[in-house]
Structures are given as structure tokens and as C-alpha cells.
């Protein structure tokens, strides 16, 4: 339920003494107890202790604004809805207090009508709330009244009567379609050429060939338009790796110039040597 008049959460903004909260955010206004501004308004309206049909909207607007003011003074962040309602009520209040003498200005309904509509909505919400309480107070199936407890072994059944609700139908359809979409995204995932693939291809292409060959020319066959970037990146990475391991040699004449490679010398090199062979 919404906070009752005795609820400390609600009292806080009104009754907290200013000094206590001077430092620190210890102060919490439990707006979670309210289901939005209308709920808060209804709670405030109930405190006018009159028939909801005769509440003063002006007084209600003032109470609401005071509540919001107090909450803001405590540096409490109010959800946007509460602030929008505050602005709306402030405007309504100003119109109620100072009616525009030159009346029919635009299509704005007179403030009294707007106030009456708000009062109506509060009464309607209250009525629905009471209706919900009245419903749940009824003798409920499974708690106060009971259906047959066991299947009847003699109530032989024929062909099953298949049932499903429209809700089942719609949710399962939507679920399916969402799933299909997700799969489509996976398929469209950016293609990659892994380092392992590059390594394997390089070893196959270069092998022990003693001739220098341009890396991009060697890789040409793999470079479909969408694969170009990944093939270049992976083959460069793999060739550096292979050079470090002494399996091939790399040569580049100048910065950003083409990269040449050839098979390593047949003699197994000293582990330190390969890095020296890597000339820039």
C-alpha cells in the first residue's frame, strides 16, 4: 500500500528537522511505496479527510508541491514523472488562483474543469482500488472454495480436446520470430580469418621456397572484398610469428612498403639468430 499518514517515509519530508540532515544523504524518501504521481496525489487527498468528491484541488496541488519541494530540498532525486506532475499542478494552481479575465483565450479548458477532471480521476482510482480489495475479499477458488480434488477414474476421456490461449499463440509466435532474427544476426557476423588459418596458409605457400614473394600477392586468392582486412591482418601476424620461430624470413624496403617473405634457410638456426634476420 501507499505510505499511510503514520508512515515515517512520508513524514520525513514534512517533519524532519532541518539540522539533522545537514550533511550526508542519509535521508531517503520512499517514493517506491507510491505507484506514480497519481497514487501520491490520492494519498494526499485522503488526508484532507473529506469525501473525495469534495476535496479541494487547490489545497491538494499545494500539498503536492510542498511534498516535492521538501524532497528536493533534501537533494532527493525525484523521478521525472513527479516533476512533470509538479509543473502541471503549479500551472493549474496559478490558473485557479488568478483566473484570466479575458477568458476564451485559445482552446484551453477552464481551470475549474481541469480541477474537476483531476478530482474525478482520483475518485476513479480510489474506486478501482476498493474494487480490487472487494474482489480479493471474495471466497476464492483454491483458498475458500474448491474444485474437484482428483481426476475421476471413471470419467473416461475420448480424444483430447486441445486447448491453447490466444496469448500462448501470440507470445510463441513473437518468440519464434525474435529467435529467427537473432540467428540472422549471427550469420551476418563479420567474417574473420584466424591466425591459425593464416599460419597454415603461409606455411603451405612459402614452404621452403628461397624466392622472395610479396605477402599481399601471396594472399590474393583469399582476399574477397569483405575478407581483405582480416586476411591482411592475420597473415601479417602469422608471418611475424613464423619469422620469430625461424620458419621464414621477412624483408621490407621502406616504411609502408610491400612486405616480402621467403622460406627460412634449411639449416636449423640458432634460436637467437632469427630475430636478427628480421630486417627492416
Amino acid at each position, binding site marked *: 500500500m501507499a505510505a499511510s499518514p503514520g508512515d515515517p517515509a512520508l513524514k520525513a519530508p514534512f517533519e524532519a528537522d532541518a539540522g539533522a540532515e545537514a550533511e550526508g544523504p542519509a535521508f531517503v524518501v520512499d517514493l517506491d511505496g507510491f505507484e506514480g504521481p497519481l497514487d501520491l496525489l490520492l494519498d494526499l487527498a485522503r488526508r484532507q479527510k473529506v469525501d473525495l468528491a469534495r476535496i479541494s484541488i487547490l489545497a491538494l496541488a499545494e500539498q503536492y508541491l510542498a511534498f516535492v519541494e521538501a524532497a528536493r530540498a533534501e537533494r532527493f532525486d525525484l*523521478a*521525472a514523472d513527479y516533476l*512533470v506532475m509538479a509543473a502541471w499542478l503549479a500551472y493549474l494552481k496559478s490558473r485557479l488562483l488568478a483566473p484570466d479575465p479575458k477568458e476564451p483565450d485559445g482552446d484551453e479548458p477552464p481551470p475549474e*474543469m481541469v480541477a474537476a477532471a483531476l478530482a474525478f480521476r482520483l475518485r476513479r482510482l480510489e474506486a*478501482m482500488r476498493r474494487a480490487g480489495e472487494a474482489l480479493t475479499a471474495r471466497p*476464492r477458488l483454491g483458498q*475458500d472454495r474448491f474444485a474437484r480434488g482428483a*481426476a475421476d477414474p471413471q470419467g473416461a476421456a475420448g480424444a483430447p480436446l486441445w486447448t491453447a490461449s490466444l496469448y500462448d499463440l501470440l507470445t510463441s509466435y513473437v518468440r519464434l520470430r525474435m529467435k529467427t532474427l537473432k540467428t540472422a544476426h549471427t550469420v551476418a557476423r563479420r567474417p574473420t580469418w584466424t591466425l591459425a588459418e593464416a599460419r597454415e596458409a603461409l606455411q603451405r605457400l612459402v614452404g621452403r621456397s628461397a624466392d622472395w614473394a610479396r605477402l599481399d600477392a601471396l594472399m590474393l586468392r583469399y582476399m574477397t572484398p569483405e575478407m581483405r582486412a582480416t586476411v591482411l591482418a592475420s597473415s601479417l601476424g602469422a608471418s611475424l610469428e613464423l619469422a620469430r620461430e625461424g620458419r621464414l624470413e621477412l624483408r621490407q624496403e621502406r616504411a609502408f612498403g610491400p612486405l616480402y617473405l621467403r622460406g627460412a634457410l634449411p639449416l636449423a638456426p640458432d634460436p637467437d639468430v632469427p630475430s636478427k634476420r628480421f630486417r627492416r
Partner: protein
Amino acid sequence: MSGRDEPFFPVEGFDGRVSAEEAARAPAYALRVLEASLFAAPEPLTEKALAARLPHGTDVALALRVLVQHYAGRGVNLVRVGEAWAFRTAPDMAAALSAEAREPRKLSRAAIETLAIIAYHQPATRAEIEEIRGVATSRGTLETLLEAGFIRLRGRRKAPGRPVTFGTATGFLDHFALESVSDLPGLEELKGAGLLDGRLPPGLDLPAPRDDGALAPDEEPLGEGDPFEALSPDDDGDAAP
């Protein structure tokens, strides 16, 4: 409830709703088939379904009235549930049957309120529910009510966007011991007070509840995955936005 003071075996004197002569016209065979059918059926049975089990031409309505009357004072009553009929234990037997009582279905306050609005205003669109409650309706709330069999998708409003309308389902009547939605508590009063009238004229609207799908400052995108699964299962109540 009727009954406790009536004789346990209602002999001749019916209480006026069904005369003895009328009752005599309801053939015993039909009454027995109805008893057996309604007893054996796991769900309430419609008059139409019951008629299909009886010899052609049987006055099903009369037979049902005879049975209703016969069971009125018993431990088990024959009750009407919308268009259908079912045996249910008498409401005053609750205490004696406490062993059978299940954990009450936990409905959040938001769910109860939403259910009441749908029941009293049906057919109601989501926008209408939100207008009355003044807050956005969470998906979880409607799902809970749909899954419980309390509400159903009725159709669509003939209005721009043709929004889906919700209404109560048979499970609602059954659960809350209502014969029909016209038996809703306080319905006439609310109607008389004009509280069930349609939407307010435009221009008199309060600021509308926010449900534009846009992210609030304290939210982040769902990211990958099934959006259905992303809804936490306990997203039952409506959070104040």
C-alpha cells in the same frame, strides 16, 4: 448463502424458483448425466457442451436449475461460471477444508488494480488501464494475469492503431465466485457515480504515464539475448517510473 437452514434433503417443497411440477419434467436420466459430467469435468462445462451429452430436446436449462436448487444447501454447490457450470465446495466450508487450501496466488497490488480495472471497464486497452492508474503497466503484470487465466485478449478497439482490448476470462469468474461480470461487487454504484464512463475529453488529461520505450537516465540497453528472457521473472509489480 442459502441453505444451511433448509432441510438437508430438499423433499418436495422447492423454494419457488423451480416448482415441483417443473422439477418433475426434468428427467432423472438427464439430471444424472449432468451430475456425472460436471463432476468428472476438470473445467467448467458450457450449457452447449452439456446439451451434447443429453438426448436431443432435453431442457438443459431446466435440469440445471433443478440441480442448482438441489445442491443449494449442500457441502458442494452447482455454480454458474459465465457461460459454464461447475461443482464447487460451498463457501462456508472453507474452515473445514483448510487442509485443501493452497498457498494463495500472490497477486501484486499492481496486478489486482489492473485486474479490477479490466473487470469493471472491459473491454479495456492498455492505454485506458494506464490512464486510470496513472502509471505505465509493466509487461509482467499483464502476463501474470493472462497466465493465471484471469484475463484474455478480447479483440481490438476500432480506433486509430486498433489497440488490443483486454477482458476477463472464465478463470476470473471461477476464482472470485462470480456468476458473471454483472455480479461484480459495487458495479451498479460505480456505474451510477459515473466512475465507469469512458475516457475523459482531451485537454483534461493529466500528464500521461511514461512508457515511450526510451531509456531512462538510470537504465542501460538490454544488449544481446532474448528480450523475453531479459525481463526478470519477478518483474511483477509496476515500478513507479
